């Protein structure tokens, strides 16, 4: 579908033919000369030029001779700023002595003030300046004077260091921050030869996207604190990978030196992340090697103590504990599509149940039905955002919860003033940057605001997983989509959720979006799996599984990558697990492994191959980057347990699973019905009561950010946000301490008075100094008490 759209666009584009160094090339109107030359394989040297940033023409490295209609420009032109025109003849350094000398001259000038510190510079070996000095520069310098020096390095955030004397003032970093991220925290300062990149002294470069500036810096002026002085590029082994941190689906590259991941970079995928990623994706990878990483299987002995065991011993213990029991599966959103498929098949064949749910969070039947009826198999993409006439955000903060979606919307906002509306309780930094219409509602009152929207078939509604916290909201979204023809996309927070949905890791669906309730769907799958029948009962949801564990209606549970602390009722979860036989597949010790009977260590993303489906449903495949790792995917372990149980699922390898998934195809039968749910509206509050609203910030206490102090240093400060009206009533100003409490507990945070619904208080969900779910056991729309502490 994406391909068709792109083809349609391509047909409409006017082509212009130009001659470059004697060769003809036809390119779309508007193409810059430097890009047209690339199509011919002619590399014009450049620094400031970047295909995703506005042309600036600052470095002057790409000068070429140009004539149009037989009239030559009197002086060489910057090929990065000039679009092709009919009858244009371009002579690059290859055919024009003037262009060649101009480029050589500019290179000499760039090196006048550049230090000769390549041997100690991180960029050495992968440095555009170094490379192009070799291709375009002189062997020896004619400069005998004094070079410019600065104090070095300057930490412009806890994560990014700046060595100004290396900088060639190409302004890629400052343009990225302004144009792409919308965070102009770094700017060019001073003037002339003293011009330099910098921050304002009281405001560090704390942008969620700051790492991209390190990657696009064409010299070693910007370096990441974590990678600085760690390796030479030629000592690294690079593997294409995909990001496991959220559902944006970034293409990535993982660089490993002697079996250890040293850095990750944004990969290049024009249809998804373009060339960008967020700082979490770039800099949160040490969790893999964090101290509490599990290395051997553990089995709880008769003494009740969890002790190391051999793999055969542990697999046998798991099989014995599960065989013939009333067992369920809880699989978290970090599983790959193949692993999720393994859990799905394991539940149906080995455990004979549909009691499986990948939603390790607040879940409702409304959401399950919405996913089955509206999301599984859906095809809304980034491209739809590119051409949308209106984007509506519901229960979704793109900058915090799916940063590349944020960048994509921002691109269109900047390019063509795309209309964005956010139905939310609090105005966020990200929504403000998108210049969005902020439709302010009390928590719980979203549905009527949604119903009031007027959209078209070109509109896109992006709904986040938090929408499930408001009864009737997904119904309202679905009805708005049906009424207007607008595309609806569900953007979960985790990388594996969409894949798990498609793999049938949810009670109502079998792989490929096949409704469990549909007999022919069950026959389809049973045939492929080579089993006579599949369970037909409606599977339990996550919360129902927890209740059943507590009530004794279930005996056992297989848990993969679930953090009970992600759930509002974490104490109930832990209680249920304690009462049951628990097989835990985990990469590191957790609250679940602590109570498990069998713990099986699994591989992290960089250690295995597989794929995720991003929010679009687009496969994001990756290979194992660390060769000497455990490389034990969940899939392989589940397969081994099933074998032990005598109920083989025959999924020994990821490739096998991928092939089987592909062979299943998508369900072409009737979709599950979406039973609408009436909205209940916002709860009433009085006095010091407020309705809680909350989301997770991009950088917080998430388990996959463990061990990243530099990254954590750039996270947003935890605050409690109230409206000016409430602040006045409470006599509170910015920075005073607010106490937010309910019967379950309390949290205290510095106050911030901002644009938020008067009835509400906002706190971050899992940030430094506040773990709302644990402390308050409350979610969006719940009543809490807010007082000045």
């Amino acid at each position, binding site marked *: 579908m994406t391909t068709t759209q792109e083809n349609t666009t391509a047909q409409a584009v006017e082509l212009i033919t130009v001659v470059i160094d004697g060769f003809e090339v036809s390119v779309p109107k508007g193409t810059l000369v430097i890009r047209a030359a690339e199509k011919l394989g002619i590399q014009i040297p450049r620094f400031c030029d970047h295909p995703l940033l506005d042309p600036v023409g600052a470095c002057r490295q790409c000068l070429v001779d140009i004539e149009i209609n037989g009239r030559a420009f009197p002086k060489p032109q910057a090929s990065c700023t000039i679009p092709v025109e009919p009858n244009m003849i371009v002579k690059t350094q290859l055919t024009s002595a003037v262009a060649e000398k101009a480029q050589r001259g500019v290179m000499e000038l760039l090196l006048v003030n550049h230090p000769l510190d390549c041997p100690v510079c991180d960029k050495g070996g992968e440095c555009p300046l170094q490379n192009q000095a070799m291709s375009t520069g002189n062997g020896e310098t004619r400069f005998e004077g004094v070079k410019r020096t600065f104090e070095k390095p300057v930490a412009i955030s806890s994560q990014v260091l700046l060595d100004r004397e290396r900088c060639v003032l190409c302004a890629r970093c400052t343009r990225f921050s302004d144009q792409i991220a919308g*965070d*102009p*925290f*770094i*700017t*060019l*300062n*001073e*003037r002339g030869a003293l011009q330099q990149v*910098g*921050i*304002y*002294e*009281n*405001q560090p470069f704390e942008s969620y996207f700051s790492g991209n500036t390190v990657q696009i810096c064409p010299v070693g002026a910007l370096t990441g604190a974590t990678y600085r002085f760690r390796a030479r590029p030629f000592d690294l082994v690079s593997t294409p990978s995909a990001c496991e941190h959220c559902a944006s689906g970034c293409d990535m590259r993982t660089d490993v030196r002697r079996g250890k991941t040293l850095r990750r970079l944004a990969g290049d995928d024009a249809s998804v992340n373009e060339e960008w990623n967020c700082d979490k994706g770039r800099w949160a990878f040490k969790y893999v090697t964090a101290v509490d990483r599990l290395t051997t299987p553990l089995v709880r002995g008769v003494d009740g103590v969890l002790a190391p065991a051999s793999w055969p011993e542990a697999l046998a213990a798991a099989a014995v504990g599960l065989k013939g029991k009333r067992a369920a599966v809880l699989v978290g959103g970090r599983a790959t599509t193949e692993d999720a498929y393994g859990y799905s098949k394991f539940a149906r064949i080995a455990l004979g149940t549909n009691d499986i749910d990948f939603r390790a969070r607040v879940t409702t039947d409304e959401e399950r039905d919405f996913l089955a009826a509206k999301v599984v198999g859906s095809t809304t993409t980034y491209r739809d955002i590119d051409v949308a006439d209106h984007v509506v955000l519901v229960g979704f903060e793109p900058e915090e919860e799916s940063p590349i979606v944020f960048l994509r919307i921002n691109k269109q906002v900047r390019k063509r003033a795309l209309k964005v509306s956010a139905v939310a309780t609090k105005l966020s930094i990200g929504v403000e940057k998108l210049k969005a219409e902020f439709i302010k509602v009390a928590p719980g009152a979203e549905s009527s605001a949604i119903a009031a929207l007027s959209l078209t078939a070109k509109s896109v509604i992006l709904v986040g997983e938090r929408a499930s916290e408001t009864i009737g909201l997904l119904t309202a979204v679905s009805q708005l989509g049906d009424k207007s023809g607008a595309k609806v996309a569900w953007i979960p927070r985790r990388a594996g959720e969409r894949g798990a949905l498609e793999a049938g890791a949810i009670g109502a669906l079998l792989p490929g979006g096949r409704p469990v309730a549909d007999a022919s769907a069950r026959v389809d799958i049973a045939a492929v799996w080579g089993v006579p029948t599949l369970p037909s009962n409606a599977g339990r949801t996550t919360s129902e599984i927890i209740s059943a564990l507590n009530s004794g209606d279930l005996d056992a549970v297989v848990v993969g990558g679930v953090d009970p602390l992600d759930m509002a009722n974490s104490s109930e979860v832990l209680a249920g697990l304690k009462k049951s036989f628990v097989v835990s597949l985990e990469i590191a010790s957790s609250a679940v492994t602590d109570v498990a009977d069998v713990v099986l260590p699994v591989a992290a993303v960089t250690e295995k191959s597989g794929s995720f489906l991003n929010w679009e449903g687009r496969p994001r495949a990756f290979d194992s980057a660390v060769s000497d790792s455990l490389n034990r995917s969940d899939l392989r372990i589940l397969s081994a347990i099933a074998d032990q149980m005598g109920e083989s699922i025959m999924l020994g390898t990821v490739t096998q699973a991928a092939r089987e998934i592909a062979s299943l195809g998508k369900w072409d039968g009737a979709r599950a019905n979406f039973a609408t749910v009436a909205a209940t509206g916002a709860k009433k509050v009085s006095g010091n009561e407020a309705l809680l609203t909350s989301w997770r910030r991009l950088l917080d206490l998430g388990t996959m950010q463990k061990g990243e102090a530099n990254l954590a240093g750039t996270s947003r400060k935890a605050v409690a946000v109230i409206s000016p009206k409430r602040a006045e009533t409470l006599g509170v100003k910015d920075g005073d301490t607010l106490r937010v409490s309910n019967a379950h507990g309390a949290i205290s945070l510095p106050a911030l008075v901002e644009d938020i619904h008067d009835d509400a208080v906002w706190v971050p969900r899992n940030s430094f100094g506040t773990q709302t779910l644990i402390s308050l056991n409350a979610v969006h729309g719940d009543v809490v008490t807010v007082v000045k502490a």
Partner: protein
Amino acid sequence: MSYTPDQLQVMDAIIKRYPRSRSAIMPLLHYVQSLAGYVTNEGIELIAKLLTLETAEVSAVATFYTQYKRKPVGEYHVGVCTNTLCAVMGGDAIFAALKDHLGVENDGVTADGKVSLEHIECNAACDYAPVVMANWEFYDNQDVSSAKELVDSMRKGTPKPPTRGPDSLVTWKEASAVLAGINDGKANEGIQAGEPSLLGLKLSKEGK
């Protein structure tokens, strides 16, 4: 320092001069400079807030222009033109003499805070060379001794009046307010033109 409601009102009026608020950044910088004597962090932060900009965007602008000072200057800021023509005709000698006389280097301030010294570029008064500026008022046709007398008068608190300017020299802060576009009522003071400006006209009237 914090800003008074009156001052905030002035800033609001400055912003309203322009179709787009960001254009007010330069007059606002002149204005905060007129209050503190230089562009303080408080000033940068306030301007960012008033114009809904990031502070980095404001400091990027403030550091580009040489008239915005990021540290205090003297009550009387003296600029000696040392661009080629003035330098050759005596500007270099004047600047050297003033450094020595005041005991400060370029961009230095006297210990009493009265006078600061800077060598400046061409100030569009070449027919009056050598030119010295004080708080950006013209002191035409200077020489070493007249320049020394000028700074001495400043240190005594009775600065000599500009050649082409108001009847008496205003302070650095007061001048900065004028540059912020605030009318100090002194426009009608001083001469309309000096002799060199009138030379061609005079000769023309003589039939030349």
